[in-house]
């Protein structure tokens, strides 16, 4: 087993891929920690937790062709599972002695709860909580996935339904504040099994745990994509019917991709809670979910490592520009959304794959193409390029 591990690794990753993986590893494990203070490093750690979500989107959207606008739900659920454990540990009877019911989280006490609700009880145990982090989101994803993909709900419909799920869950969490902490979220987390997660040394440790987890996730994901499963996913994205007619159950494949993405997001959420020290319903909503999609798109929607770079760049940009030009920030991010779709559909990974020069000329061609089409459509022609393309495809 031990010797085959390396063999497998080289089998699943071509040399070029291995190099890019090692570069990323070096960046995360050596360059960042050496070049930044703990404040910036903690910030990077926070961004990297979003990269889990973006990586999940690469699988479900880039490969599976299903775009979920509710990945925040899974990120949030993972984060909440972790936060519930930490909150219970922070609310021991001594620390909460001034409450009318000591030993329960403070927000429950404010809402006249006198006992711990039943679904909180398992989160007294670290082991159970760590199991719940991936399990709860996976079960929800499974339920949603089976229900929708078996009935061949896809594409746009799926996107909108997941968006509504995100809306429901955030209304629920905000409304049920006695059980969930409401709009404030679960805050003031202190220790994990007695280990203070707020200290600088803990932040270093958590950063590295997070980085290793992310690199591990990248390996697993790349490996999965190289397997037969991954090739089926690609085939399904490109010609769903052919895969179906070949005897594969497309619904199962899609459900798998969706659950996989959900579990990755949940890991990110749990690491977020640990590093930032709180969890709130603002992650469950639609806005963060879509922002994570843009991270994946900037990185290149079919590139696992690109997702990490995309997340880092979008979030660094957000921090940088919102500090210096708060007015300009929304224009910039808006323009980025549009540019990535119109001019660089393959994102950073596309730049890397095709080489900077080639993809720049591609982008130029696309821009010139836009201009040409613009000119031509101004002098209204009967059959614009889009239709020509359609006809060509139909004749094929």
């Amino acid at each position, binding site marked *: 087993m031990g010797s085959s591990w390396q063999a497998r690794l080289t089998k699943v990753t071509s040399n070029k891929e291995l190099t890019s993986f090692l570069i990323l590893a070096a960046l995360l494990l050596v360059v960042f920690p050496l070049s930044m203070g703990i404040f910036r490093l903690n910030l990077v750690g926070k961004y990297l937790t979003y990269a889990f979500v973006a990586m999940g989107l690469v699988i479900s959207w880039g490969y599976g062709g299903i775009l979920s606008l509710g990945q925040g739900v899974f990120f949030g659920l993972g984060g909440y599972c972790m936060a519930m454990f930490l909150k219970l540990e922070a609310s021991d009877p001594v620390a909460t002695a001034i409450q009318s019911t000591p030993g329960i989280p403070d927000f429950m006490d404010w809402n006249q709860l006198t006992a711990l609700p039943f679904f909180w009880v398992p989160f007294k145990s670290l082991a159970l909580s760590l199991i719940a982090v991936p399990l709860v989101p996976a079960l929800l994803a499974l339920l949603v996935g089976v229900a929708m993909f078996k009935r061949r709900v896809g594409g746009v419909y799926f996107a909108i339904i997941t968006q509504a799920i995100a809306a429901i869950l955030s209304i629920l969490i905000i409304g049920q*504040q006695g059980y969930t902490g409401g709009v404030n*979220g679960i805050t003031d987390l202190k220790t994990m099994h007695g280990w203070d997660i707020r200290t600088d040394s803990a932040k270093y440790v958590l950063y590295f745990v997070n980085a290793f987890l992310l690199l591990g996730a990248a390996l697993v994901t790349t490996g999965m994509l190289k397997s037969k499963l991954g090739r089926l996913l690609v085939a399904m994205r490109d010609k769903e019917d052919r895969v179906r007619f070949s005897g594969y159950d497309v619904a199962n494949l899609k459900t798998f991709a969706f659950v996989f993405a959900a579990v990755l997001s949940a890991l990110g959420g749990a690491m977020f809670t640990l590093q930032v020290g709180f969890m709130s319903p603002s992650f469950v909503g639609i806005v963060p979910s879509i922002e994570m999609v843009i991270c994946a798109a900037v990185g290149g929607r079919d590139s696992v490592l690109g997702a990490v770079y995309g997340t880092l760049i979008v979030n660094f940009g957000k921090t940088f520009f919102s500090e210096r030009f708060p007015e300009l920030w929304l224009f910039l991010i808006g323009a980025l959304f549009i540019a990535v779709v119109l001019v660089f559909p393959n994102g950073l990974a596309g730049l890397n794959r095709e080489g900077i020069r080639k993809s720049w000329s591609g982008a130029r061609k696309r821009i010139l193409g836009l201009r040409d089409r613009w000119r031509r459509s101004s002098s209204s022609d009967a059959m614009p390029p889009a239709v020509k393309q359609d006809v060509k495809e139909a004749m094929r």
Partner: protein
Amino acid sequence: MGNRQYTYRSKLFSALSAACALGIATAAVAADYPTAKVNTTGLAVTDTEVTVGQLHSATGTMAISETGSIQAERLAIDQINASGGILGRKIKIIQEDGASDWPTFAEKAKKLLISDKVATVFGCWTSASRKAVLPVFEKENGLLYYPTFYEGLEQSKNVFYTGQEATQQILAGLDWLVKEKKAKTFFLIGSDYIWPRTSNKIARKHIENVLKGTVVGEEYYPLGHTQFGSLINKIKLKKPDAIYAIVVGGSNVSFYKQLKAAGVTSAKQTLLTISVTEDELLGIGGENMVGFYAAMKYFQSLDNPNNKKFVEAFKAKYGAKSVIGDVTQAGYLGPWLWKAAVEKAGSFDVDKVVAASPNIELKTAPEGYVKLHPNHHLWSKLRIGQVELNGQFKVLYESGLIEPNPFPKGYQ
């Protein structure tokens, strides 16, 4: 124009110097306060300058509300600088945008405290943003002046709350309703999150246990809800003597417009709110709420010399059309309270400023006299204002100074 401004300024400062005679006197002799002595914890204080942070949402959904606080804090800091600064040092502001996003607030709070080493921060608006930054301030031992009226249930060494906590804003208002409007039955309405829920809980206990009235309905709608027809019909069914409303944000506008359209006007119905200030009225439109009541510690129309100067200065800086709500005024108090505490302590060190803060008085506050309680909240009055067509309030009632009580016994 410049001349007039100058005279009002000098007038203002002569008034201020009465209150902070000590401050003005020391301002002239900064050399008496060597940096090494007034700053032993490595804050961003130089011989000529002290850096403070400002952390609000300039973008996103909360920008609607937080803009006023940003402006008021800047005004106060400009005025302090014009009068010689603090311990002979000018205040420099680093403004960060929380972007209506709680993790961003936490991130920017860390940046201000760790990278910029600011001496204090004026900021936050929603409770959620405050809860998100609170652990940061406690761990880094920073200082935060928080301007919004809020639900209470919190007291931190590192935070000063310049708005009212729930009991200050609620109890006296309900007493007034019962005494003046003979209200016996109440309908409680709120947006569905912690502040309205906690406030209504306190209101209900007070109505049932102290005022011996009845609550005939209690309803919550999600933030951003826009259809209040069903709720209005329920109100019509229950016929309460008074509606007690804590609706916030865009929902506010929908609620009052639809209330008016359904014929529920002040001619037929008494309504008291604790969530509508002049800022909100701008969006609702005075004509849609005219005659209803609001309970606040401050209204722009307050008739006292401090407030006249404040309103004049605010309009001179931000335009004649700008309005000032309760939170805006509370934001204005922050820098002045900090200045008073720093000067009393003779130091910028957070621990010394915190130690010097209890019982600090501000006689020049636009709302009148305020005093800082050892529990970090302000002693303040409660006023009842009635909405007028022009989007202002007519002040009908003013209580005595109310002691802040963030953990009210019997109301939890």
